[in-house]
């Protein structure tokens, strides 16, 4: 992503990102129907269904890499008073799929995970997932804050930025995450304007013209 696009993507959830995926590169390879995952609940063209079945049948991350992703994603999005954790929301599976769908993430993710293990081995003579949580946090603290991180940690920072992006977006587009966020739409309803208490909070009101011309629904129903 270009910087401009990535900034745009932060909160503009409903606008699709500009990432175009060249998902067709290997579409001529046969799709094994027996490995197809359950039918999608959203409309798929034949090409789309074939590509998705093929991606689902492939494995990108090793067991060790997936275990590391699980630990990291729960450090980034742990269970709190409001909602569950990244692993509870299925974030590692999302990350496995998305790096297959968006191959530009593959090398930064694979290399970053390796960077992390080398760093933990240097410091604690253990792979990251074998460190205790205090040791894990010591490393994470060195790469989670781009503006104060030491120059020699830059590659770790770049990896953590990507890992945080994929974890956050995977979590907040899950059922648990959407609820956590307080998004209440995607359901039949009647839009009756900004609630009165919110208008009052911001010192705003609708004009006479708006109240007369716009559609209104009985608030008691």
């Amino acid at each position: 992503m270009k910087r401009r696009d990535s900034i745009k993507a932060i909160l503009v959830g409903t606008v699709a990102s500009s990432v175009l995926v060249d998902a067709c590169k290997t579409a001529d390879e046969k799709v094994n129907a027996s490995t197809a995952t359950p039918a999608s609940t959203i409309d798929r063209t034949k090409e789309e269904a074939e590509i998705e079945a093929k991606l689902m049948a492939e494995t990108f991350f090793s067991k060790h890499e997936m275990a590391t992703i699980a630990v990291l994603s729960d450090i980034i999005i742990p269970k709190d008073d409001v909602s569950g954790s990244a692993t509870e929301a299925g974030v590692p599976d999302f990350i496995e799929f998305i790096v297959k769908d968006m191959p530009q993430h593959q090398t930064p993710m694979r290399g970053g995970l390796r960077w992390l293990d080398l760093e933990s081995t240097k410091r604690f003579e253990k792979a990251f997932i074998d460190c205790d949580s205090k040791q894990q946090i010591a490393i994470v603290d060195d790469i989670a804050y781009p503006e104060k991180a030491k120059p020699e940690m830059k590659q770790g920072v770049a990896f953590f930025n990507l890992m945080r992006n994929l974890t956050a977006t995977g979590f907040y587009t899950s059922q648990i995450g959407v609820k956590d966020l307080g998004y209440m739409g995607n359901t039949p309803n009647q839009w009756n304007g900004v609630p009165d208490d919110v208008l009052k909070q911001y010192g705003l009101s609708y004009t006479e013209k708006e109240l007369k011309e716009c559609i209104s629904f009985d608030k008691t129903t």
Partner: protein
Amino acid sequence: MGDFQVKVQPKTYDVVIVGSGAGGGMAAYELSKAGLKVCLLEAGTMYDPQKNVTQLKGPWESKRRGASTKHRPFGDFDACYGGWELDGEPYTKEKGTQWDWWRARMLGGRTNHWGRISLRFGPKDFKRRSIDGLGDDWPIGYEDVKPYYDRVDKLIGIFGTNEGLENDPDGFFLPPPKPRLHELFIKNAAIQSGVRVIPSRLSILTKKIESTTERGACFYCSQCGRNCSVAKADFSSTNVLIYPALKTGNVDVIANAMAREVLTDKEGLATGVSYVNKEDLNEYQVKGKVVILAASACETSRLLLNSKSPRHPNGLANSSNVVGKYLHDSTGAALGGYLPTLFGRKKYNEDGVGGMHIYSPWWLDNKKLDFPRGYHIEYWGGMGQPAYGFGMNIQMLNGKYAVAGKQKEAGGYGASLKEDIRYFYGANVGMAGRGEAIPLESNYCAIDPDVVDQYGIPVLKFNVKWSEHEIKQAKHMKETFKEIMHNMGAVITWGGDDGPENSYGLETPGKIIHEAGTARMGNDPKKSALNKHNQAHDCKNLFVVDGAAFVSQADKNITWTILALSMRASEYIVSELKKGNL
């Protein structure tokens, strides 16, 4: 391979229509209702909004959480099959020129996902040359189209308000929805800068309409881009025109039919269309008394240019040599950011309709400006449904603004990160201009002499450049947007640092997907391809009812005018057939 032969469809139709979007859908509807036998060719697949559903799905139902793909560049839930690049169907560009070509490949075309912004052209929009000396006047005026706009309003349904504006005519409007919270801030900020803000005009039913019992009222899920499978409350050619037309029993749809050529007889009249079936790859011909092209402006001109015959050696309807020329798109430029006032806002459902509830029609006088023609402004923001990309790059935000009164270090993780994402959610605002470009003879598409697509059909080569008029317009857009953002205390995070080096963020031509002008109307057969009835000067039983017929496209999205002109041309066809003139 083996035996290569052309199969001729046994049935002769009254009308063969190429393309099933706004123009083709309206023609199929009107003509089939009038009792004519219609064959509708579509280059893409069949699509039934009642079966092919993405509406009311949660982001988790997409494996990529709504991210775009090559097959759905506007996101995984978008209802339109097609894209900027299609396998096996290339197009080329002259070196140093730009054109991004969107092609839908499905029944109903791009109307299945469009923005539903439904603006009538005003009286001035048909007579621009008389006003500023640039481009050309249309051979018709607002008064000629008004009765059809009125009928389209009532047939299809649109919300908005009658404001009595000279060049943004009143219509038959359903009540609009009330502005959302960020829209109230935008409205006040824009008015402060002298920018007019009025309720948007979208073809979405806020109430049921009298013309049909098949369609329900909007239930405010904000997902018109997914096409309204549930209530058919927004306009798509499929829900509103084609499926109702099929019920007459007078329409045969042939999907996956890539038109190759318009067939003509030795008198030069159209006799039908030849096409390749993309499924069985066989060659077919379908015969009709009248042929109507509505394949999208560029595909239509490609088809005309590829239909060469002894009577039409320069391509069909092209003795004027204007086919492919005067290609133009809307101008577009945008910026966005955050409204810090809205950080930590109360959460409630503000989905509303699929699109903006307010907009700004062009409000200035070009005599006082350094560019001709205007633009309208579209706005967005607020608490939308999260999709891929949501929650990313928090490190660019959470070090800059205190979260609930607490200043944090940029980046981070854990419960604190969750708090930040919740806090910033719903505070984004943005705006985009959509303006009128000057149609130029030097901006064109033509047949590439060296390249064919996978069906052997010669492809288009584009040659389009923005002129200084459009660049100056984009500069003005950005200045206006910055002022509006400043007035409401918003922070610009993207699109704010454009300059002459990137033409002020002016989008590549084609990118706004309002292609028009490539077989324009006119009274002079030497300077136009079509007469004022969308009828080819050179071939009286050939009509073009998509954006190709446009002399200019105003600062109004062109769909409503395509629909009105297609309805008008259809009425003319019925009357001419009755008189025995076709």
